[in-house]
């Protein structure tokens, strides 16, 4: 990331929504471009090379996932934050596994969105309460009968501390409040969340995908 406010690119197929985000972000970031469809987004992001792309999950022609996959091939340094009204877990998990550094819902407040963009620009991961809930759910449901063949404990399960952190975020605690509750530093909370993001992206467990399409009933 270059010095100064983060350079941000907006991708969303709803004009009104981009207008709203622009005004929420105000002067705290530099908006370097916008696109309302997948192909234009891929081209313009490649040209302008923003620090962070705020990306709608749902769009025709492959959605946010298609944008991330195409841009990452040539510009792996560009960071993505997914922003969506969608509560569909399969879409959210797909966009994270494609490489997004986090997911927030469109009901997020202006200051929280700014905070999330700055966090992503700094290389951290951003988990909304809903994403934290999805991840807890996905990892909890994956191993009903204990470890199986091909199970990698480094990637395929959450540590007890990571679970505690996610549970507090899912309950609506900010990173700061989570840190205070667990008597750890905000940096440590961030590193737990980044580690969970890595697991979410790299775990080869097919259950993650399966979970996303059929939420568990226990």
């Amino acid at each position: 990331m270059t010095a100064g406010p983060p350079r941000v690119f907006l991708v969303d197929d709803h004009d009104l929504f981009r207008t709203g985000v622009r005004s929420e972000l105000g002067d705290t970031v530099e908006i370097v471009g916008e696109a309302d469809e997948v192909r234009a987004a891929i081209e313009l992001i490649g040209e302008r090379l923003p620090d962070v792309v705020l990306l709608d999950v749902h769009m025709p022609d492959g959605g946010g996932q298609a944008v991330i996959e195409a841009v990452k091939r040539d510009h792996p340094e560009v960071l993505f934050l997914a922003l969506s009204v969608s509560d569909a877990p399969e879409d959210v998990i797909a966009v994270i596994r494609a490489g997004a550094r986090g997911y927030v819902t469109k009901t997020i407040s202006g200051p929280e969105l700014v905070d999330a963009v700055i966090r992503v620009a700094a290389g951290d991961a951003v988990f909304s309460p809903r994403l934290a809930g999805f991840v807890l759910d996905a990892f909890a449901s994956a191993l009903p009968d204990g470890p199986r063949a091909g199970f990698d404990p480094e990637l395929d399960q959450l540590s007890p501390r990571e679970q505690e952190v996610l549970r507090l975020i899912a309950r609506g605690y900010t990173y700061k409040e989570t840190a205070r509750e667990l008597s750890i530093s905000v940096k440590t909370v961030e590193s737990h969340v980044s580690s969970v993001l890595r697991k979410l992206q790299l775990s080869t467990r097919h259950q993650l995908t399966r979970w996303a399409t059929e939420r568990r009933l226990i």
Partner: protein
Amino acid sequence: MTLGVAVEQLAREVETDHGVPVDVVAVGDCLLDGDLRAMLAAGREATVNSAKWSGAPVVSLFTEVERKRVSMFVRDRGSGFDPGAVSADRQGIATSIRGRMDRIGGKVTIRSTLGEGSEIELSVPRRNGRT
């Protein structure tokens, strides 16, 4: 009906009645039984209470179904209240929430700091959960 569906419904109803968004996060799900219906009623009181009195722009509702228990957290970043104080509507509601949870062998924990918000935690053991 499942707990997840009922909690979503509860959230939409409180939003409509009180004009405050209620964000739901659910981990796991299970079918409703009598105990869970009682817990939902207690959770609704806590949610309405937050929406009506806390002044917070949003109320967070988190539910988690584990093998041996089900828990529900209602959190807001509003005005907060003194859980030990006897006066006002808040205490009345706290009492009725406790009443409902006591009858099903559940637990209530209230955390609140004036000016920072509050969180009400409800939990109940599962009778027919798998071991």
